[in-house]
């Protein structure tokens, strides 16, 4: 195992930041810790790095128990949200820092340090900036230097705390793909923390969804997205329409309509429920295609790049439905504000009980 966390608990006063959390991550994986702000994901990362002390639990990194080691002996690479480059040192000195502070006997020779730093900076495509100071670099460049600096000490694991959140959208996307490629080359067990589900879905081998200091679900991006374990995960992983209602006799009500509930809920007696529908799993047409179609009027049209967002008010439903249609369909059907449409719900997920985010 690359990283093994056993029963980690951490409280700040009354507040439980991490609640008896256990997690195993195979060597060489790139894992996303995904959750809303304040869910404890950054705290967990800092606990692994030793920057925060857990109240209880055990941390094993690459088969070595590091629970009680001071942070400087844990040998983790940590990449901070705001880069945290040493402002007084050049790019070269920044990357060399971890090697130069080694005890004399373990410290590589000058020439070796130089070669290693240059190699790493080449890897992150920053070898042209050896003599620059951090203030002379853009955000994306700084974060790449920070990554090289973290890798310089040959860390057991690499921890990235919202590494792209301070960057603008375009650079963020570029850096994301680049990080994935880099990870495929160096294979160090890595965890990155993010609140951006897109980032997690795109980048990670496995996603761990965290809420209120507990793991809600873990799995590959595909698994988590297609088979969310509960309402929280479903809701957090993308835009969603929520309909509150009741399950009764194997049916769930959606306005005046009654849909069959999924098999696992067939035997449930009457119970409050929430029905979830993703905006892109809603079909729109100008003519009625079956009896279950809802009838509605488009209230709002939003341009979202390749997709068009529609806000549709349906008969017999309390709230409006958010739908997404491809641009082409939007043009073909001659949709516009005020147009009457029929709404087909292709796929629903039903969860019983209450939850809150």
């Amino acid at each position: 195992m690359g990283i093994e966390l056993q029963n980690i608990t951490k409280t700040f006063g009354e507040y439980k930041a991490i609640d008896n959390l256990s997690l195993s991550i195979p060597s060489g994986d790139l894992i996303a810790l995904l959750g809303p702000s304040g869910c404890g994901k950054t705290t967990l990362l800092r606990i692994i790095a030793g920057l925060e002390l857990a109240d209880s639990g055990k941390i094993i990194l690459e088969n070595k128990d590091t629970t009680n080691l001071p942070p400087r002996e844990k040998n983790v690479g940590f990449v901070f949200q705001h880069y945290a480059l040493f402002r007084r040192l050049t790019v070269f000195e920044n990357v060399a820092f971890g090697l130069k502070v080694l005890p004399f006997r373990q410290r590589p020779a000058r020439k070796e340090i130089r070669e290693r730093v240059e190699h790493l900076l080449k890897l992150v495509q920053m070898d042209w900036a050896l003599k620059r100071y951090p203030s002379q670099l853009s955000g994306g460049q700084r974060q790449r230097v920070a990554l090289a600096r973290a890798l310089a000490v040959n860390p057991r694991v690499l921890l990235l705390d919202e590494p792209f959140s301070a960057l603008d959208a375009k650079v963020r996307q570029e850096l994301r793909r680049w990080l994935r490629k880099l990870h495929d080359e160096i294979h160090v067990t890595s965890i990155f923390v993010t609140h951006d589900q897109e980032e997690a879905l795109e980048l990670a081998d496995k996603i761990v969804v965290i809420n209120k200091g507990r793991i809600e679900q873990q799995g590959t991006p595909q698994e988590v997205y297609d088979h969310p374990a509960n309402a929280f995960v479903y809701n957090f992983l993308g835009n969603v329409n929520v309909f509150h209602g009741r399950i009764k006799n194997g049916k769930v009500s959606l306005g005046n309509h009654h849909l069959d509930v999924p098999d696992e809920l067939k035997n449930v007696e009457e119970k409050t429920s929430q029905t979830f529908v993703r905006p892109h799993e809603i079909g729109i047409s100008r003519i009625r295609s079956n009896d279950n179609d809802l009838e509605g009027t488009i209230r709002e049209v939003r341009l979202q790049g390749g997709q068009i967002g529609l806000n549709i008010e349906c008969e017999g439903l309390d709230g409006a439905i958010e739908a997404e249609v491809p641009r082409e369909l939007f043009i073909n059907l001659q949709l516009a504000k005020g147009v009457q449409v029929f709404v087909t719900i292709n796929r629903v997920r039903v969860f019983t009980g209450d939850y809150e985010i």
Partner: protein
Amino acid sequence: MPQPESAKSTPPVVKKRITDPRSVQVFLVGFTYLFFIGFIFLPLGLVFSQAFQKGWSFYLESIREPYAIEAVKLTLLTVAIVVPVNAVFGVAAAWAITKFNFKGKSALKSLLDLPFAVSPVIAGLIFVLLVGSRTTFGSWLGEHGIKIIFSTPGIIIATIFVTFPFIARELIPLMEAQGRDEEEAALTLGAKGWQIFGKITLPNIRWGLIYGMILCGARSIGEFGAVSVVSGHIRGQTNTIPLHVEILYSEYNFTASFAVASLLVFLALLTVVIKGGIEKQFQKKSFHL
């Protein structure tokens, strides 16, 4: 979306000036100059004209007189001890206040201003009451041959008290702005405490520290009130430059008094020049944020 015609044809009107009217500017600049002339240039000029009233030779004699030289020596000794002590204290206090959370932190932060708020005379009296020969502690010290009040240690202690906020107050906002990220990064990279301090923290606060030390030094040279109370004005022994100036003045020896005072002015001007240079560096280099 097509631009409306009107937006294309009429260029936007640019107002030439968005500052205050000219009359206000002239008034404020003029007032500032007048104030400077009345309160800085004039008094400075007066010091020098008085100092040189009886010519160069008298001037040199006044500042080369043994008591004057003793006063200069004592003042420089005081500065040489006070500034390093307060630098260590200032860095330690700023470090503690900005990097740790502990009980009484905000109270400590406000108390840091106390020496600025308290009259220096009272500051001096506090130490007389604390370690003077009439107190138990003071007489105990006296029995062991340690004299604090009316001797050099007293002067140094009083000066430390009066000037200790300078460096800490300079560093706290700076260190607060810089945060703990860099230290944490260094920690995860395997650096030991002293390495982090020497390689990261100290270089980051370098200019602020030097700046604070200069202010602290300038104030130590000129400190009168507190030192006056604890020194006992023993000529050639416990007289600093400001005290010496005062003694000469009260003996109606005006020219000599101003001659020695001009030394203080030179030191002050030197401080201002160094400070200006540091400030430039500070702005250039400190904000690699």
